[in-house]
């Protein structure tokens, strides 16, 4: 196979599939046929200058989804556009914004991107569009890097303001009087990469948008909201949760696509006893090399910075040995300089760079053109991210190939053996809870700072008076004699809110690597116990840091940069007490509930685990006080199992089934498995029933548990399926969790319990199952 003659993609793929050692690992080979473009004509109301500008860029007709979106926006509807990577989403919101400003130069548009880099890309692209239409338009980014003298110009004259939620929250909204030109004339708000606004971050951003819309109302504007999202299970619902307004879903993709092969690959089992598998990185390299040698543009995704460097070194080494195009393979990850990144993006677009090894930094809408092959070393954690990465390969004409190489992690194994999960539907959904009390109260403070509240004024779900009265007890707001609520503290509330964490009290992480220490980020107390305890490896933007010191009472963790091959995992000992049941319903063999719980957590030791193999390479003690966390949880009781099970067996079965449920829940709701905690009780103190709890690790919860309660059936079926299809003989880390006592068959016990709880034996996840709608008060 040492052939460096250029070959086309199908030929290389065919050759690879004839190679037995590689073909053996292919679990599934899906061919997605080519699709023709669906066109629609330009709307007649579109300004002539814009039409001719598009024509000069070679765009004579629109794709059907683009036309549908801009017609809906023209009609004054909020829309949410869900189409794959590189299907021309930008035009869906750029054209309405251009049109609005072409009609009335005093009109304003606000574009929100989750990161600064994306915003800058979009400014450039939007500027080109406007220029080709011959419209002089002031498009400006407003972020932390914007110099002070330019800021006042942006405030007064920026017609299209491009920013991010953090900047909107801390710099624009509290100073809204300086932005009155924007807020008086705001016609359109664009929220790109909608799927990134989930969890705690999404809950915060939903409240930032509440504040934004409240200020718009004060200045008399009612902007249309356009959301764009990668493929997820519940885009309309997510848009509605985030913006508080219903949106029209536009998901019929009209962009053309070439034929695409998707291969799901499983590394061979190295040790049948423990179920340990070969490295995903090594296998990914073997798949990537022949394509590179044949001159096909290839992107390889690694899951961390370290993985990227390992992959890159391996590929270059292999290409050097065989005199291949070694210098045309580059790395791309957080930590590279912006200029370096821009050069790599340009090189990829122009074909000068043949291969790139990247982290998910390249997952979001950075423009690198279209490549031939995408190889994913490890499941990226969600179907949406997987498709975004796969979407990097895909020519409009000709064949492209995507290879997903699984690692040994439970989620990876589950996904790879359930191709329909990845290919047929998107059961996973993004959740957020804008009414999380911690988050809601924090933003209510900021909102009061911005504008006084009228009595009875609604903020979020209901009139805010009760909440404001609560804040008045703490003296941050007061009700004046005119009945309105005013901010009455000298604090600046926006500065006390971090959009990335729920609780107000956080541990600040300080990086001591540079000469002048800098704040790396914050984590809430509960997460701090397991993430930044002393001697932990803390990973931030896929860079590793070693925690030198944690000053618990000062709420500060001091870290420095390291480059090691392991991560740390802290064991949490948890006791749980239900406080209030929000909803309950009978289930087969027991009951399911969700509600508020009190979790007491004590962290006493941590393990060092190797990347890729998760092999245990050491441990250490942790000395931290116990913490209490009020959060929400989903729990199910196995009433029937109480009487006829042996207590020991039941203990193992509950834990095994719980682990599987936790894995499936993380997959379905697009969260890190660490965001959901597991507690099992053979006899719960309050109900005396065997109980499995899944609680949210975020104070107050972000709505996951309610959704788990609703998707109970899917969860059980998935858990049973995960265990049943696992290749191990009596339970392993990939299904029922690490085996504590080798003599006990955790696998069959957990399966038996799940069957008693109503899991259909051997059934697949009911794809696209309608969520069990429950009568929720």
């Amino acid at each position, binding site marked *: 196979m040492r052939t460096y003659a250029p070959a086309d993609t199908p030929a290389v793929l065919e050759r690879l599939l004839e190679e037995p050692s590689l073909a053996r690992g292919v679990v599934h080979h899906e061919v997605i046929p080519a699709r023709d473009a669906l066109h629609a004509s330009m709307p007649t109301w579109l300004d002539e200058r814009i039409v001719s500008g598009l024509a000069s860029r070679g765009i004579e007709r629109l794709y059907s989804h683009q036309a549908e979106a801009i017609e809906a926006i023209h009609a004054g509807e909020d829309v949410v556009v869900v189409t794959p990577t590189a299907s021309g989403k930008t035009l869906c919101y750029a054209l309405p914004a251009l049109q609005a400003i072409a009609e009335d130069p005093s009109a304003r548009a606000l574009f929100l991107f989750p990161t600064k880099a994306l915003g800058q890309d979009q400014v450039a692209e939007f500027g080109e569009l406007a220029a080709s239409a011959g419209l002089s338009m002031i498009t400006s980014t407003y972020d932390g890097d914007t110099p002070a003298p330019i800021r006042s110009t942006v405030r007064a004259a920026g017609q299209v303001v491009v920013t991010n939620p953090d900047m909107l929250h801390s710099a624009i909204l509290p100073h809204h009087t300086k932005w009155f030109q924007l807020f008086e004339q705001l016609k359109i708000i664009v929220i790109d990469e909608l799927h990134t606004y989930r969890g705690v971050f999404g809950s915060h951003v939903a409240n930032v948008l509440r504040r934004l819309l409240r200020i718009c109302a004060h200045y008399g504007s009612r902007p249309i909201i356009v959301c764009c999202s990668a493929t997820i299970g519940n885009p309309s619902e997510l848009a509605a949760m985030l913006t508080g307004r219903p949106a029209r879903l536009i998901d019929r993709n009209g962009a053309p696509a070439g034929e695409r092969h998707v291969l799901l690959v499983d590394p061979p089992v190295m040790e049948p006893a423990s179920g340990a598998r070969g490295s995903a990185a090594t296998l990914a390299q073997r798949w990537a090399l022949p394509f590179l040698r044949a001159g096909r543009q290839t992107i390889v995704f690694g899951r961390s910075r370290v993985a990227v460097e390992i992959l890159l070194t391996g590929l270059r080494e292999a290409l050097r040995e065989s005199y291949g195009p070694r210098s045309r393979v580059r790395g791309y990850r957080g930590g590279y300089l912006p200029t370096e990144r821009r050069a790599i993006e340009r090189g990829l677009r122009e074909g000068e760079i043949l291969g790139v090894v990247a982290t998910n930094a390249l997952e979001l809408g950075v423009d690198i053109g279209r490549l031939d092959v995408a190889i994913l070393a490890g499941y990226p954690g969600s179907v949406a991210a997987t498709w975004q990465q796969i979407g990097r390969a895909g020519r409009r004409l000709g064949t492209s190939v995507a290879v997903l190489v699984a690692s040994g992690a439970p989620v990876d194994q589950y996904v790879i053996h359930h191709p329909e999960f990845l290919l047929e539907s998107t059961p996973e959904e993004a959740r957020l809870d804008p009414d999380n009390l911690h988050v809601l*109260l924090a933003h209510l403070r900021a909102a009061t700072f911005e*504008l006084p509240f009228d009595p009875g004024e609604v903020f979020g779900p209901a009139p805010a008076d009760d909440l404001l009265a609560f804040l008045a007890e703490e003296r941050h707001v007061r009700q004046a004699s005119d009945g309105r609520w005013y901010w009455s*503290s000298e604090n600046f509330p926006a500065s006390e809110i971090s959009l990335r964490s729920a609780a107000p009290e956080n541990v600040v992480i300080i990086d001591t690597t540079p000469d002048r220490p800098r704040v790396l980020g914050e984590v809430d107390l509960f997460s701090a116990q397991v993430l930044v305890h002393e001697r932990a490896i803390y990973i931030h933007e896929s860079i590793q840091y070693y925690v030198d010191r944690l000053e618990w009472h000062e709420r500060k963790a001091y870290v420095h940069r390291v480059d090691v091959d392991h991560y740390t995992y802290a064991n949490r000992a948890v006791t749980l007490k239900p*406080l209030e049941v929000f909803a309950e319903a009978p289930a087969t063999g027991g009951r399911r509930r969700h509600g*508020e719980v009190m979790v007491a957590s004590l962290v006493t030791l941590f393990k060092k685990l190797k990347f890729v193999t998760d092999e245990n390479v050491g441990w250490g003690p942790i000395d931290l006080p116990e913490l209490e966390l009020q959060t929400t949880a989903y729990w199910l009781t196995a009433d029937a199992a109480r009487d006829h099970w042996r207590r020991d067996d039941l203990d193992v079965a509950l834990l095994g089934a719980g682990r599987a449920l936790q894995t499936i829940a993380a997959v379905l709701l697009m969260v890190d498995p660490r965001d959901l905690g597991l507690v099992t009780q053979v006899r719960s103190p309050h109900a005396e029933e065997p109980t499995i709890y899944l609680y949210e690790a975020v104070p107050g919860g972000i709505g996951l548990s309610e959704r788990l309660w609703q998707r109970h059936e899917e969860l059980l079926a998935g858990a049973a399926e995960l265990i049943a299809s696992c290749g191990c003989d009596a339970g392993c880390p990939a299904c029922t969790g690490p085996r504590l006592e080798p003599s006990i068959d955790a696998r069959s016990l957990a399966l038996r319990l799940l069957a008693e709880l109503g899991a259909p034996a051997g059934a697949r996840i009911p794809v696209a199952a309608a969520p069990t709608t429950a009568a929720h008060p």
Partner: protein
Amino acid sequence: MIEAPTTERDRLARRLERFRRAGAGPGAVGDPLPHRRHAARELADRLADAVGGEVVHGERGLHVRVERESVDLPIDRSQLADLPGQPPPDRPLVCLDTETTGLATAAGTVAFLIGIGRWVGDRFRVVQLLLPDHGQEGVLLDELARHIPPDSWLVTYNGRGFDWPLLVTRYRLARRPAPEHAGHLDLLPIVRRLFRHRMADARLGSVERDLLGVIRHDDVDGWEIPGRYLGFLRGGPAQPLAAVVRHNDEDVRSLGRLLVHLERRLGDPDARAIAPRGDLAGLARAFRRDHRFEEAIACLDAALAGRPDELGSGPAVVATQTLAPPPTSRPAEDEPWWSPRRRPDFGGRPVRSSGIGWDRRAAFGRPWDEVRIAVDRAHLLRRSGRTEAALEAWEALACGPGRAAIVAAIEAAKLREHRLADPLGALASVERGLTLADRRRALGMPEPALEADLRHRWRRLRRRGPGQSASRADRTGPASASSVGRSNGAGQSNIAALRPASR
């Protein structure tokens, strides 16, 4: 949804109760307080009582007004107007100072006390407007607008950066136009330009002490003010606000006093002669900004003629308020920069307890010595077109000490080459500069940037003019560069780097 179902409300109440018990609230200010509304009328009465003002009832609401006894403070407006950047003599002046509920000029900061000072004939009169309750802000703003005639000039201290933008924000929130005015004189930049050489910082308190000879006793610290007012709004005592109102009154008066000080000390060209030389040098720079070069040069001539060590001999120190123990210093200001407890900086009025305006090094590190004034003067002479005089000034400086002599040699060379068409003379100046630079290098104070400039000039002039001074050829080569590296061992160069550039 106007009325949420009772069950939801009950659940919320229970959740809030648990929230409260868990102490998860966003950090209470003091003990929890039972929520209670106070009538605006009651608040206004208490406030007026405490600060010695009267409640003014208008059609749309009420505010509290304090009239201060007017004082004799004559000012010669035409003389003041002669100074750069000052208002024309026929414009009414409105001295303005606000007290606010915070330092951020963002939407949630309220100006609750506005002091307004005006001249009525030779007498200076202060009126203060107070906000008795949040709901009455519109009334207060309307009242303030009545005190600012459209042809008036505002006089403030840091008002461009803080007070006025804050008031504009308040007007905008109340959906009213901010009052028109003809101009805005912010005294902070003027104080910086003229007096920074002899003050530790630019706080108004320091200005009073160092320039006006006024020392306040029993004054309230700026950081305490928001707390006192907010405490009152929440039902606390109004008495602590009396000191705040006095503080604001003194601030407004100081604006008037400062204008008079400027007019008397610097406005009259004859009186100027006895002003400290640093003041005159600063004034010269102010004139220069207005392109009034002759007056600027006159200032510098006066400065060079004056006594070198004279500092401001202001009026005798006057104590304006009763004696009291020194105010306690502000806590938690020593927090490190990354500490979450550290007050975030959102611009606006700088935090008063840290020396604002410039750091101490800048204040004390660059005194207006004779050389620095002479350098300014030479620059001015050139800009005003008096080339011969400028050349003379630079030549004189080139015979003087220090780094300035090298700079002067370069400047002289520039004038000779570009203005006087005298390349040979320019070359001589450059060579003089190179000699000076060599001397400084020998003393361990090399000036690589100046040397590079000189070498560049020397090469160019040599190419233009007839060949001479071949002995200098060695300077052009890299040999001299490498000798730099040799002669400056690590220790030496560090010492050189630590030295301030000026001397």
